[in-house]
């Protein structure tokens, strides 16, 4: 690794097994600053487990995970990693259903996370302005006072992306952002993610090939817990091993 310009995220030789099943097997991966990277792979390839490791939900059995050069993520818990600037969107949209759209974003907004700061928090003008901008970006301005439970599936996905923006992370991990979306919503989401990737790094896990084509991102193919191929979508889809393990089925 180049010591002067370390990548934003660096995984080396990471392995983890559950009850003897190797979910991740000697996985190495690099995410550069300001990069948009797509990760594809068949079911059980370890995509979600990899995100669990990066965000501190799962501890790897072996291997190194470094953020911004020298921060060892394997020693930190979920809250500390989120505070460092790694935001995560889950496969299943998880927003706070009994809160309004506005409150969901306010909870995500980058602010001190301790109990007493939260108790005595009053939104400043800048905070309100920032949340209004995000609402406009995710096109939910009209529904700001609506409870999140009443949103459609696609709107919940966007609200979750909005919450990620409010967190203002350096790295966004986005797990299947267009699952269950209409074609028009999918195109809009690709546009949104490309926009976001201008100012920060984004890693997208996705199955939808046309969506990945829209993203125009570097593609990493995972299979059986390790990297099978990397490159542009056309490059990896031409790779015979990839066709065998994934596309050809």
């Amino acid at each position, binding site marked *: 690794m180049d010591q002067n310009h370390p990548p934003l995220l660096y995984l080396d030789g990471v392995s983890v097994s559950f009850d003897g099943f190797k979910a991740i097997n000697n996985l190495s991966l690099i995410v550069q600053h300001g990069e948009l990277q797509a990760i594809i792979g068949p079911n059980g390839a370890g995509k979600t487990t990899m995100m669990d490791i990066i965000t501190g939900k799962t501890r790897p059995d072996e291997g190194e995970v470094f953020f911004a050069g020298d921060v060892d993520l394997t020693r930190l818990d979920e809250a500390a990693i989120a505070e460092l600037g790694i935001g995560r969107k889950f496969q299943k949209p998880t927003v706070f259903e009994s*809160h309004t759209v506005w409150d969901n974003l306010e*909870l995500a907004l980058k602010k001190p996370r301790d109990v007493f700061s939260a108790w005595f928090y009053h939104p400043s003008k800048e905070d309100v302005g920032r949340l209004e901008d995000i609402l406009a970006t995710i096109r939910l301005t009209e529904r700001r006072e609506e409870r999140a439970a009443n949103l459609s599936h696609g709107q919940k996905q966007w609200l979750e992306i909005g919450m990620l923006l409010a967190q203002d992370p350096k790295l966004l991990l986005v797990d299947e952002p267009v699952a269950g979306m209409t074609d028009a919503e999918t195109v809009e989401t690709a546009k949104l993610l490309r926009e976001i990737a201008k100012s920060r790094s984004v890693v997208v896990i996705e199955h939808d090939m046309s969506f990945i084509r829209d993203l125009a991102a570097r593609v990493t193919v995972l299979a059986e817990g390790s990297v099978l191929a990397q490159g542009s979508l056309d490059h990896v889809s031409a790779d015979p091993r990839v066709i065998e393990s994934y596309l050809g089925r």
Partner: protein
Amino acid sequence: MITKTLLRAFDGKAIWVVAILIAIAVAVPASNLYLPVGHPLRVPNHFVPLLGKYLTYAMLALALDLVWGYCGILSLGHGAFFAFGGYAMGMYLMRQIGDRGVYANPVLPDFMVFLNYQELPWFWYGFDMFWFAAIMVVLVPGVLAFVFGWFAFRSRVTGVYLSIITQAMTYALLLAFFRNDMGFGGNNGLTDFKDILGAPLQAGSTRAALFAASAIALALSFIVCSAIVRSKLGKVLVAVRDAESRTRFLGYRVDNYKLFAFTASAVIAGIAGALYVPQVGIINPGEFAPANSIEIVIWTAVGGRGTLIGPIVGAVLVNAGKSWFTGVFPEFWLFALGGLFVAVTLFLPKGIVGALAQGWTALKAQRVSAQAEDGSDAAPEPSPAE
């Protein structure tokens, strides 16, 4: 910042609740003390401590609601915090008896003389002073909850497992306090109190003052809880209740939030216990019984959890029902209580207050739509299958 946060506590309906509680704090004692006996509006003597007891129960239910209704921690051991507050107050009242006990020992309470204690155990020191007892009322339940919560929440014990260990905690305390050599009066507990702060407990004015103190303590707890749930802190608590791991991935230290709510709740419960004991005149290990803690859950569920008014309404209604029922059909009270819990769970999942609020919103929506129809369409059609 802090005043702004406190002012937020009075938003909406909250100011009415506080106003009503203050009115009760003045009206009930005034009517008891100043209206002539036999006046139709006079609150009878025996009613004052009874109503005061309901208010302390309401405070206890409010405390439980903060952790259960807002943070999703179903504590089945909240009676323990109430009992600790009660014991701390009971120890003060015991030492106020002085040499007026049966054995006339100036230092040792009667039960210690009876059990051949030669000197006062160390943990009874200081309880002859009211201020010391008052600090202990807050400190002991608070520290217990903090230590318990520290271990439980850090090890990520949640859901039914947490409920079971809170139940085990109160049961273990029940067994411990039953033992004579614990030094808390064993089975009989602490009783035969004479006076508090120099005022005789049997006097009408003392009972009236204790009632007023209970109503004001309830109002203050309500203000604190309201200031919590209306702030971003309250929103985080609800977020933890609904999606704990999501909250963690947003960067919140969920354990600290739970610990805060649990400890604050235990402190409120302890103060409630301390106000309860002088009004009922006794504290014994029975207060630690698991069944008591479960009853608190029922009051809260009946009134409506996740609202601040609900637990107050629930605690007062269920206990008023209990007082009446145990007078008329004493054997059937537990069946009635169980039936009530089942009925509320099945038919009023949001409790009385939740159901009323829902009905009110529905009625308002109906009116708005009726008005809208009046403007455009004179004859509203009956809509089928509503």
